[in-house]
């Protein structure tokens, strides 16, 4: 796996990026390669995810060859959860990331049992799973029941919009968004909401399908995206359109550097990103001080 990590002080080049971003989001926005009106995008995305919810995990495994599990593990290990943490996982309807965080907190708890000060902290751990789509949340709740976590007070399922979160300012230790930010209408709004709800020292982490730059690998990846994935979607999930949207929306998402500068513009410090599998996915992170 080719790992590349770039840390940049991004504060110096704010203005040009801002202009282009605001132009892009004046009235029309993109839905895959199509230009659609802003109001329509959220509905169309909602439709896509309602369509794919039932087969979501199966298709993820098919498309990524199981790699998405490793990517999510990596995301959680970068987050380094701790007992007593208040965490918000946005667009995490199926609970994939939330379950991993909970698991990690529990294992830390076992290690830290010698510390008497930490004993009651585990009870205070809250992982809020926020998704705009109730169908996706239902999938997550069912999986929680299957895992025997149905009664766990640590998991809180919330239906909500990432652009207008219903949580208080400075209330979260961590914020993750995995494969979600690509689908929102206004990325800047999501970022500023993330900044708002985080405490000082809180971290923003974003796992997202991103851009491949390695020459030959890029061609292979494009072929795979545009020829294999829609067909796979048709065969496995019986839904070509949704997966066509998926691969197109990846191409419309800002490249790593650009997205990192957007995170910095939202006020985050120590903005870094790490490419996994040559940039097929990237983990961006930022720190609120």
């Amino acid at each position, binding site marked *: 796996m080719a790992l590349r990590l770039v840390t940049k002080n991004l504060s110096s080049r704010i203005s040009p990026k801002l202009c282009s971003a605001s132009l892009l989001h004046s009235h029309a926005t993109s839905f895959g390669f199509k230009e659609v009106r802003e109001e329509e995008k959220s509905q169309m995305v909602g439709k896509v995810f309602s369509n794919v919810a039932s087969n979501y995990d199966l298709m993820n495994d098919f498309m990524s060859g199981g790699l998405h599990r490793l990517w999510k593990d990596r995301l959680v290990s970068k*987050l*380094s959860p701790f007992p007593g*943490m208040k965490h918000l996982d946005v667009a995490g309807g199926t609970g994939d990331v939330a379950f991993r965080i909970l698991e990690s907190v529990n294992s830390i708890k076992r290690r830290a049992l010698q510390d008497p*000060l*930490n004993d009651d902290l585990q009870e205070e751990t809250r992982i809020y799973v926020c998704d705009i789509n109730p169908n996706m949340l239902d999938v997550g709740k069912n999986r929680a029941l299957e895992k025997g976590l149905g009664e766990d007070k640590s998991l809180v399922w919330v239906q909500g919009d990432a652009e207008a979160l219903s949580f208080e300012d400075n209330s979260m230790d*961590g914020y993750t968004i995995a494969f979600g930010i690509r689908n929102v209408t206004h990325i800047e709004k999501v970022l500023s909401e993330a900044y708002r709800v985080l405490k000082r*020292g809180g*971290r923003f982490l974003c796992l997202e399908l991103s851009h491949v730059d390695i020459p030959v690998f890029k061609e292979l990846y494009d072929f795979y995206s545009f020829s294999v994935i829609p067909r796979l979607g048709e065969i496995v999930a019986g839904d070509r359109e949704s997966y066509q949207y998926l691969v197109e929306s990846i191409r419309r998402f800002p490249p790593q550097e650009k997205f990192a500068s957007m995170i910095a513009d939202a006020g985050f*410090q*120590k903005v870094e990103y790490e490419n996994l599998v040559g940039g097929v996915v990237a983990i961006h992170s930022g720190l609120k001080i």
Partner: protein
Amino acid sequence: MYRTVVNRILLTKNTGGGRRCLLRFPDLRTAVTSSRFSTTTEPQTSPNRPLNPADSSTSSSSTSFQTSSGAGDIPRQERKNPPAEYQGEQARVLQASLRHVLRLGWSEEAMIAGAKEVGISPSIVGSFPRKEAALVEFFMDDCLQRLIDRIDSGEELQDLIPSQRIYKLVRFRLEMQAPYISKWPQALSNQAHPLNVSTSFKQRAMLVDEIWHAAGDEASGLDWYVKRTVLGGVYSTTEIYMLTDSSPEFRDTWLFLDNRVKDAFDLKKTIQEATYLAEAVGAGMGSSLQGFVGKVIQR
């Protein structure tokens, strides 16, 4: 000076070493120009550094010495680029974490406790790329800075011969980690981890260099390397000896250190004698060889 040279060398070697160095690079550059080395991101202008209870005597004295420092050292330059805000916060977290090391070890738990103490979300611990290592490295840098401050004060070292100076400086430095001695093996194993070894090696090199410099060493050439290697050996063996020393106030350790420093200075003499001997033997061999060759040619 040689120490700036070695810093440059260490710097260029380490630029490929990963994200940490990328972050640190600007700091180190300014540090080099001001003849200070600090590998952490601690701002030098931190208003009131929280003191370590166990070391409060040395710390408080060092800060007061700092103002009265005038022992022929280059004055500290102001940074051109102030470090980013988060770096100051990270340093505060690490400083607070040190107070929890005795209870929780050099661990993520100690860092979480430290973050809680200064009122920052413990999530910040995740922003240290090599979590526990960051804590150990912060401590090493902090100690080095305190040692430099003490050297700058210059009072205790003036009328000592070099071997005594070396002894005293190594002892100062090791006394700083005495409060943490029960957890120090953990820190050592952390430093020896393949991911951390380059930084810890660099920090030790800087420490040894600083001590030699303070001892008034002006060596150049091969001697420079020999001296630093030997002192590195003395320092490390004493550090290890200290781990198992149960004598009151580490009396055995200081005796051990004294003997090792003497050994080292004896070794220096021995090496010099060996050099003279080698020269003499070489000269003798050379002349007899010349004679032999001369005889062969005559025939």
